[in-house]
C-alpha cells in the first residue's frame, strides 16, 4: 500500500509503566516512531489505532502529544477501558495507524506568567508544553492526582518549571480542599494565563473560577471522538452562541468564554 498522506502505519518502540508503581495503577508511557509529524503545538493530539484492534473496538483513540522529538512520539496513557488496555498491552514492534497533530493547542505567551492546572492524565500535554516553552521559569504547575505521584511524569516537570505542586486526592473529602486550593491559585493568577486539562468536572470547576476572577483561561476537552478529523460531528461541544462545534478541529483547547460548558455531557 502506498502512502496516502497524513495517516501512517508506525511501529511501537516501547511500552513501559510510568514509575515503579505504574503497572499496578495502569499508568504507561508509550513510545512510537515519529513518522514525520509536522510541527506540533502542545495541547494538540494524535489519533492512534493499533492493528490489534481489528474491527473491535471500532474507533481509534485520541491522545495528547506528551512529548514529540524528531525520532519519537511519546504518549502518557492511563489504562481505563478496552482500548487503552489493549494499547498498554502492546509490545515493541507492534503496529498502529497514527495521524496528527490534530486540533488546536494551548496558547503560548512566553512572557506571561502561566499556570498549568492538570488533573490526572491531563498532565500529558503539559509535559510537551513545558519542554517546548521558551521561558519555563514563567510556568507553574498545580497537579491533582489519585494514583501515587511516581505514576505520573511529574518529577521531571517539577525540575523544569518555576513552581510545581501536587495534591493527592485520596478520599472524596479531599475534593473540597483541592477546589479551595484551585480557587486560591486562580485568584492569584488572574492577571496571567491559565491552562487546564483533566476530567470534565475539574474543567468545569476551572471554568467557574476563571469566570469568578475574570481570568484568561483555556481548557482542553476530552469529548468522545470517532474520527478526530472533523468528519463525524460526534465530538461536539456547545459554544457560547449555542452552536455545536467540533472539539477535534476547533478544540480540544478552547478559551473558557468560547463555550457554554454544561455540567452534563
Amino acid at each position, binding site marked *: 500500500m502506498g502512502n496516502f498522506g497524513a495517516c501512517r502505519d508506525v511501529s511501537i518502540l516501547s511500552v513501559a509503566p510510568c514509575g515503579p508503581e505504574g503497572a499496578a495503577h495502569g499508568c504507561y508511557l508509550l513510545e512510537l516512531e515519529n513518522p514525520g509529524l509536522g510541527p506540533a503545538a502542545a495541547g494538540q493530539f494524535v489519533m492512534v489505532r493499533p492493528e490489534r484492534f481489528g474491527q473491535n473496538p*471500532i474507533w481509534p483513540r485520541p491522545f495528547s502529544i506528551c512529548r514529540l522529538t524528531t525520532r519519537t512520539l511519546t504518549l502518557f496513557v492511563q489504562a481505563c477501558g478496552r482500548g487503552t488496555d489493549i494499547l498498554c498491552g502492546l509490545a515493541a514492534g507492534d503496529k498502529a495507524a497514527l495521524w496528527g497533530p490534530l486540533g488546536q493547542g494551548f496558547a503560548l505567551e512566553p512572557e506571561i506568567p502561566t499556570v498549568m492546572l492538570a488533573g490526572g492524565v491531563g498532565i500529558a500535554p503539559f509535559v510537551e508544553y513545558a519542554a517546548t516553552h521558551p521561558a519555563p521559569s514563567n510556568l507553574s504547575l498545580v497537579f491533582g492526582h489519585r494514583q501515587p505521584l511516581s505514576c505520573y511524569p511529574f518529577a521531571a516537570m517539577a525540575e523544569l518549571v518555576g513552581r510545581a505542586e501536587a495534591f493527592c486526592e485520596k478520599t472524596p473529602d479531599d475534593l473540597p480542599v483541592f477546589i479551595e486550593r484551585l480557587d486560591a491559585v486562580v485568584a492569584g493568577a488572574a492577571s496571567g494565563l491559565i491552562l487546564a486539562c483533566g476530567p470534565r468536572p475539574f474543567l468545569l470547576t476551572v471554568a467557574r473560577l476563571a469566570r469568578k476572577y475574570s481570568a484568561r483561561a483555556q481548557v482542553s476537552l476530552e469529548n468522545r471522538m470517532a474520527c478526530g478529523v472533523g468528519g463525524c460531528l*460526534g465530538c461536539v461541544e456547545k459554544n457560547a452562541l449555542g452552536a455545536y462545534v467540533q472539539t477535534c478541529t476547533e478544540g480540544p483547547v478552547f478559551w473558557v468564554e468560547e463555550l457554554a460548558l454544561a455540567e452534563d455531557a
Partner: protein
Amino acid sequence: MSADVSVRLAGLALKNPVMTASGTFGYGLEFAPYGDLRSLGGIVVKGLSLKPRLGNPMPRIAETPCGMLNAIGLQNCGVEKFLRDKLPLLPHSETPIVANLYACDADEFAELAGVLSGAAGVAALEVNISCPNVKAGGIAFGQDPAMAGRLAEAVKKRAGSKPVWVKLSPNVTDIVEIARAAVLGGADALTCINTLTGMAVDIRSRKPRLANVIGGLSGPAIKPVALRCVWQVCRAVSAPVIAVGGISSAEDVLEFILVGAHAVQIGTANFMRPDMAFRIAERLPGLMEELGIESLDSYRGSLSS
C-alpha cells in the same frame, strides 16, 4: 492488464465503485490531507437541509461491538453555505460530488432539490428518507411505501437533469416494497442501507449513552444485514443499487458487487482510519486480478446458489 473497475451508474461514469457515505466523510475536505479526493469513485457529503441545522444535544455517539451508534441529528451548514463555501473547493469536475438531502416534508424536499438542480458541481441527489435521528420525518418516511414514492417523485420533478438516488432504511418489514415504491416514484438508483435503529445505556449512571436515547447502528456489525437488503433489492428492481453498511475492505466491496450492487459507499470505516476509502479504492483492482475478475460488470450479481 489491470482489472476494469469503472462503473456506469444511472447516467454517471465512476472511475471506480468506491464512494464515501453521507455523514461519515464530512464535506469531503476534512479528508483531503489523507488521500487524493480525485481517486475516489464519488463523494457523498453530509446531509444538507434548506436551512442550517444545529443537530442533537451531546453525547451523540457511542461505541458498540464492531460498530457504533450515532444521533448527530443532521447538523449541517445548510445548502446555501455548502454551495457557496464547500463545493467550489471540491474536485467536482474529476469526481462526482453527491448531495444528500434531508427535509421535513415533500415540499421542502422539492424545494431543496430545486436549489441543488442548478448547482453545476453536484452530480446527483441522494434523498435521505431514513434518518432515525430526527423528530420530524426522518425514518418514518422510509417506512411507508406510499410516502417513499411520493418523496421520490417530488424530488425527481425538481431535480432537472440530476440523477436521484433514494436511500432506504433497513428498519422495515419489507425493504423490497419500499424499493419498488421509490423506483415507481422516479428514483434513478437506490442506496441501501441507512443505519439500524439501536440504543445503548450506562448501567452506572442509569442514562442512555446518547442524549437522543436511540440512534443509528453502523459499522461491520451490520454488514450481514446490509448484504441481505442489497441482495433482496437487486433481485426485485432493475434500478442500480449503491450498497452501504459495514464495508471496511476491498473484499467487502466485492461481496456487495457479487450480490448485485453497482457501487458502494464507505461509512463508519472512514473513522477507523481517515485514509480508509482511499486505500480500498487503490486495493480493489489488485484484489480483482488475484481473483481473476476482469471487470465489475462481469462479476456483478454472479452469486450462485
